[in-house]
């Protein structure tokens, strides 16, 4: 039996999507934005206690100290859902220790809702329909990290979502959940028996992919161009306005309330363990946004570790390939991660995917699926154009290399290229951004992984497009040579 056939879902109820109907638990047609009044009522279809409703926040701040919350999230190995998969609890623990009176001084939380990676659209679902679950996670994270100001950085193209979040934040202020008086109308917290004030501000970006990189995002909040910063110093030490700053993804924070409510042991029973000794586990569920040539594209909440084949073929999820076509490949999760080849349909969607299947990583777990008719050279050209367009221009290898790659791939696609151009494209792809690091941020890495994996996994398509270069041997040598 193949590993795929034996796979069964461990989590039989929705967690993140408990208020957002998603297949197989509900029909997406029934979706609506859950405003505060509805959010305060426990959801009907929950399989895991009365989650959310700001009760998780109340329970957390009245029964646990900030350090206990961080410890709890650390035990849950809540890995970042924004792409890198760095454990959130670990990130929080990097903040400088509080001073003698228990405060950390001015420090910030920046929420990364700059979901600009092509093929990624999972955070939009949460912002569209369940904004308060995100805000509750933000409140818990701020309490845990002793933060009193949070910036919700949302990409400029999400006009509707920005309005939804703005209204949800306003609701929280009106009801005294946020504000100077302290969380939940000034509830006494277990932190020195004092209320904990919190301000959350929405900050709209303006159409720059690079602002999704954490330090680029900070620059953008400071009112500068979104040029990533050199690290160290890491943002946890010196971030926004040179203060200690934590940057978390929307989905990561949306996971926090249920972990606090149900415990880290409950969280560890979802998802899967790592098959590599010593590697952090892939616990919990994950929003997976499938697009491309499938019958039912959309966002699904699955256990981490679900094989891509199940995600595509199961009636619970995408219900097979569109028009019964054959699977040719899929972007692993956001184009930076590279492409899974035709023989990698059984890849498990967990944080180990990068080490097992020759892609960069899980990314945002949003695969775009290609059927047998897809022109992979065009796919590579499209991706190269994206990086050329979005390179911020700060580091030379990326600024120049992304343009060259795009030119080369355009030439290959048009049929005017020669065999040696394939080698040249690969050489450019492997010499920009790769370790030991010739660029400040990972954009060049994303570019080269995407182009390299496509060229390596579909070599015949590229070779068929180029003119053979014959190397004449033994002629044109000597005085008569031109």
């Amino acid at each position, binding site marked *: 039996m193949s590993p795929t056939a034996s796979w069964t879902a461990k989590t039989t109820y929705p967690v993140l999507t408990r208020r957002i109907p998603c297949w197989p638990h509900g029909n997406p047609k029934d979706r609506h934005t859950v405003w505060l009044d509805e959010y305060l009522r426990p959801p009907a279809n929950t399989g895991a206690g009365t989650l959310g409703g700001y009760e998780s926040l109340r329970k957390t701040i009245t029964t646990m100290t900030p350090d206990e919350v961080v410890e709890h999230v650390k035990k849950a190995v809540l890995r970042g859902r924004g792409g890198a998969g760095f454990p959130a609890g670990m990130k929080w623990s990097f903040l400088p220790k509080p001073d003698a009176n228990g405060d950390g001084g001015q420090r910030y939380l920046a929420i990364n809702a700059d979901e600009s990676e092509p093929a990624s659209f999972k955070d939009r679902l949460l912002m569209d329909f369940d904004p308060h679950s995100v805000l509750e996670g933000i409140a818990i994270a701020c309490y845990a990290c002793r933060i009193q100001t949070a910036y919700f950085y949302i990409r400029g193209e999400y*006009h*509707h979502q920005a309005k939804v979040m703005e209204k949800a934040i306003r609701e929280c202020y009106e009801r005294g959940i946020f504000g100077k008086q302290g969380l939940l109308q000034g509830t006494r917290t277990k932190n020195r028996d004092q209320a904990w004030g919190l301000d959350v501000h929405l900050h709209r970006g303006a159409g720059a992919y690079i602002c999704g990189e954490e330090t680029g995002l900070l620059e953008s909040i400071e009112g*500068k161009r979104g040029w990533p910063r050199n690290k160290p110093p890491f943002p946890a030490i010196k971030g926004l306005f040179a203060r200690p700053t934590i940057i978390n993804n929307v989905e990561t924070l949306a996971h926090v309330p249920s972990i606090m409510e149900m415990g880290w042991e409950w969280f560890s029973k979802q998802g899967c363990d790592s098959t590599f000794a010593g590697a952090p586990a892939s616990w919990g569920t994950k929003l997976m946004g499938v697009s*491309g*040539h499938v019958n039912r594209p959309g966002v699904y909440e699955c256990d981490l570790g679900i094989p891509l084949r199940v995600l595509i073929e199961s009636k619970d999820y995408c219900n097979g390939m569109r028009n019964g076509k054959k699977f040719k490949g899929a972007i692993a999760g956001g184009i930076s991660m590279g492409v899974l080849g035709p023989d990698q349909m059984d890849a498990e969607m967990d944080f180990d995917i990068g080490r097992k299947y020759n892609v960069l990583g899980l990314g945002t777990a949003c695969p775009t699926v290609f059927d047998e008719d897809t022109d992979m050279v065009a796919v590579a050209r499209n991706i190269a154009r994206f990086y050329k367009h979005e390179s911020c221009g700060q580091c030379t290898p990326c600024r120049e290399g992304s343009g060259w790659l795009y030119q080369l791939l355009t030439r290959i696609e048009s049929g005017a290229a020669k065999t040696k151009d394939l080698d040249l494209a690969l050489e450019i792809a492997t010499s920009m951004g790769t370790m030991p690091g010739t660029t400040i941020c990972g954009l060049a890495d994303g570019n080269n992984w995407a182009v390299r994996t496509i060229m390596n996994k579909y070599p015949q398509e590229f070779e068929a497009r180029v003119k053979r270069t014959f190397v004449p041997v033994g002629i044109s040598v000597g005085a008569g040579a031109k």
Partner: protein
Amino acid sequence: MAWIVKNSAGMKIPRRAEPYLTAALKEQLTREILPRYEQKRGALLPTLHAVQHEWGWLPWQALEEVGAFLDVNPAEVWDTASFYEEFWLQPKGAHVVAVCRSIACEVCDHASITAACKSKLGIEVGQTTDDGKFTLVELECLGLCEGAPACLVDETMHLNATPESITKAIDEARSTQGGHH
């Protein structure tokens, strides 16, 4: 490409008497936005958004006014504004039709949507119609991949667009007032 900057030496800045950053806008920004940021410059993006929302684009004079308002050198305001694709430094049409051209939309035939927009509006990508009503652009991923091919008409998302549906959406937008984003 955010990093390509045109040579502006000897350029003349058209000016008008009344400011773009009006007293009402200033008052609103001072009350609501400035207190949110530890440093005044933090309010630069929200201020530019507010001015663009009011006028549809960001003229040079407006950038200078924003600089004076936030104690930022006008050159630095330009530096920031020119980096972000959504800030319009030339006038745009009253409505913006933005077709997504990224990977999921391309493999689901975004080209037919762009073609339909082009023939409907009679312009190429990046141009504005002569009556100043519509600007057509192609953007990188709009984050609407499950509904590929997708596009934005002003601030409204259109998923699973077809040449017919986008033509209809353009007609509907024409009958409404401009949506300045």
